[in-house]
């Protein structure tokens, strides 16, 4: 088979977009767009890394900070939300053995996230709107630094993403609880109670003989609980966006509202409460749920200590509502008791809940020895390692004493955030992509195992290495969110840049491998209208 033929039609011409069900097509679209936005986030990261080594003359300071603002939002919303939502909109009906409640709503989520991300990215690029994702009040309303029109477009883009998120939330919960046509009436209330953990909690206080059976599987319960945080987070971000838009529109119309009308500390508290529902809520819960699903799919065995795992997911949900204060340990006006209780003690629970998920996943894998070191298994181990490194780094900085010398340094963003996101989260998602790839593509063949191996090692070494060198810079005083002009931390930044280059190469190898597997025609075919109108998840010959 010629190279050109493989490039156009995929490995052995196995993949055909025409044979996909609407559900497969929808999920694959999410994955493709998510990967493209991941690529943009990586390139943005590399541009900023180069800028930290030697400021690029064509890129002004304001542009650097606009990239710094867009980078995490493109990474989280454009990439991670796309891949996670696409996968879960497929997996919830797959695991519940019933059709998705609404494919149309799922497609709306896809377009809203895709277009919304594009709008805020372009708005930031053109207008240099750069209050960072933290939006510390009253910075987003500082119109001596930022153009309110560009800002309004930026916020509108974020609002579209959040609207898509709300549609995702509705679709997930409706899929769990609704009764498909021709089915016996489903116990909606009981399904919902089990999914969010209420019935499991009640079981703890019932005699063993009176305990109720679980109605939803553990991965679905994890998705449902993470989705609760997703919904709350969307509410907070939408509310904040409206508040900022009010100030922007007023300014455009010639009325300047008083910035002091909003208390900066109160704002910081509730905005971090909302943001933490992502960082310390849905990410950790979704990741734990995905680990459990992957471990059971890889081994074909039951999960070790399943009931404890369910309880830990519920604890994690409650913990995620009460940990935000660890972001305010350096705010001297923040009450001391909040710093200790929410910032330190409750945050320490994350070590326990994530540690439990780590142990349970490893124990499940151990029970099925010997295992073949498949792509999904090696990426799962990489994901586990990422969180094993990043969570303790986070627990250390969530300490009043250590935070005094770590807050806003590269330590926070390196060993904690980037290792958690790039190694922990991304490798878990890659594991899910590798395991779902044959299911979603009706058995398409992977083009090259050597490329998959390179993808794994380059990503793992690049991710951990970048986090490590950023961490060393942070321990030596290098701040995040600023520019160093005198090459103070060049050694660390060059080494981190080399590791970032490895991450980029890993991504390119993966992208090339996938394109060669399904072909250019296959990728383009995903975005054509589906001829197949079935509500089934998979075609009849792939079930």
């Amino acid at each position, binding site marked *: 088979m010629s190279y050109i033929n493989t490039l156009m039609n995929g490995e052995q011409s196995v993949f055909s977009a025409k044979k996909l069900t609407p559900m497969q097509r929808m999920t694959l679209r999410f994955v493709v767009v998510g990967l493209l936005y991941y690529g943009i986030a990586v390139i943005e990261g590399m541009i900023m890394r180069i800028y930290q080594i030697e400021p690029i003359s064509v890129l002004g300071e304001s542009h650097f*900070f606009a990239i710094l603002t867009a980078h995490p939002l493109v990474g989280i919303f454009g990439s991670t939300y796309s891949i996670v939502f696409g996968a879960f909109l497929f997996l919830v009906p797959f695991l519940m053995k019933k059709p998705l409640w609404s494919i149309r709503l799922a497609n709306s989520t896809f377009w809203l996230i895709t277009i919304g991300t594009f709008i805020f990215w372009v708005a930031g690029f053109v207008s240099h709107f750069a209050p960072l994702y933290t939006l510390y009040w009253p910075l987003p309303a500082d119109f001596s*630094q930022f153009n309110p029109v560009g800002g309004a477009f930026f916020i509108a883009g974020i609002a579209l993403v959040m609207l898509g998120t709300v549609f995702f939330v509705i679709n997930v919960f409706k899929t769990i609880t609704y009764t498909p046509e021709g089915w016996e009436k489903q116990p909606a209330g009981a399904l919902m109670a089990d999914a969010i953990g209420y019935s499991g909690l009640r079981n703890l206080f019932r005699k063993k003989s009176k305990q109720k059976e679980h109605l939803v599987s553990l991965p679905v319960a994890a998705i449902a609980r993470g989705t609760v945080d997703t919904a709350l987070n969307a509410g907070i971000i939408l509310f904040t966006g409206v508040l900022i838009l009010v100030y922007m529109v007023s300014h455009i119309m010639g009325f300047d509202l008083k910035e002091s009308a909003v208390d900066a500390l109160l704002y910081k508290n509730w905005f971090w409460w909302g943001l933490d529902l992502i960082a310390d809520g849905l990410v950790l819960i979704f990741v734990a749920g995905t680990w459990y699903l992957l471990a059971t799919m890889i081994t074909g065995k039951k999960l070790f200590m399943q009931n404890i795992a369910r309880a830990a997911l519920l604890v994690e949900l409650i913990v995620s509502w009460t940990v935000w204060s660890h972001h305010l340990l350096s705010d001297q006006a923040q009450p001391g008791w909040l710093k200790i209780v929410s910032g330190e003690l409750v945050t320490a629970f994350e070590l*326990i809940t994530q540690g439990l998920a780590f142990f349970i996943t490893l124990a499940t894998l151990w029970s099925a020895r010997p295992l073949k070191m498949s792509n999904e298994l090696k990426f799962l181990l990489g994901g586990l390692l990422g969180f094993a*490194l990043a969570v303790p780094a986070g627990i250390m900085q969530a300490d009043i004493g250590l935070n005094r010398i770590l807050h806003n340094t590269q330590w926070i963003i390196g060993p904690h955030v980037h290792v958690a996101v790039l190694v922990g989260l991304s490798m878990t998602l890659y594991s899910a992509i590798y395991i779902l790839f044959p299911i979603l593509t009706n058995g398409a063949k992977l083009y090259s195992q050597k490329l998959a191996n390179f993808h794994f090692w380059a990503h793992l070494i690049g991710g951990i290495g970048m986090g490590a060198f950023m961490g060393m810079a942070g321990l030596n005083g290098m701040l995040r969110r*600023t520019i160093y002009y005198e090459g103070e931390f060049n050694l660390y930044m060059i080494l981190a840049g080399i590791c970032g280059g490895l991450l980029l190469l890993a991504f390119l190898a993966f992208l090339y491998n996938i394109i060669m597997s399904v072909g250019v025609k296959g990728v383009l075919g995903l975005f054509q209208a589906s001829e197949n109108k079935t509500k089934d998840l998979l075609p009849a010959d792939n079930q």
Partner: protein
Amino acid sequence: MIDSSLVLWGQTVAYTCYAVAVILLVGWFGIAITKKGKGSKVSKPLFYSFVGMLVVIGVSLHIVTYNTIPWVPMDLDRANIKADRVFEISVEKHQFMLPEEELIIECGEKVLFNVTSYDLTYGFGLFRQDNSMLFQMQVIPGHVNDILWEFNSNGVYTIRSTEYSGPKGAQMIIKDVVRVVGCE
């Protein structure tokens, strides 16, 4: 009071040891599960011991730091501690305004830095001449932002905003403006 660089050194050693250990553990696990042998269940006592260890580590970290890092109890109780010297500093339009051209501190003094912002959220940090950080805090408009610090060794420090306040705030730096003198 011990210097914050010593605490950073301790943290570096502790985290590096942990990171190497956990990388080796996962590496070993990856090799072990692919080797010939029979799958066996992990014992429950091992699981509960692991949970217990996590609880002990999570709680003891804060107890240890409270009792070994001297600025923690001082920070939490700073309202009841009389400072030997107070510096009132204000920030507006991305500029620090200091009470004196150079802030001189005598060895052993407990110094209160009271920083007021009149517009945006900023940061306030002292940095050594090798760019490493002595300490920092956030500076929120409309609130009291004060930090008490005891200086026990001679040194020259740079003030730098440690929080992003827009592109105009990228270079909020006053070089070598705090001087500690008189230590032997």
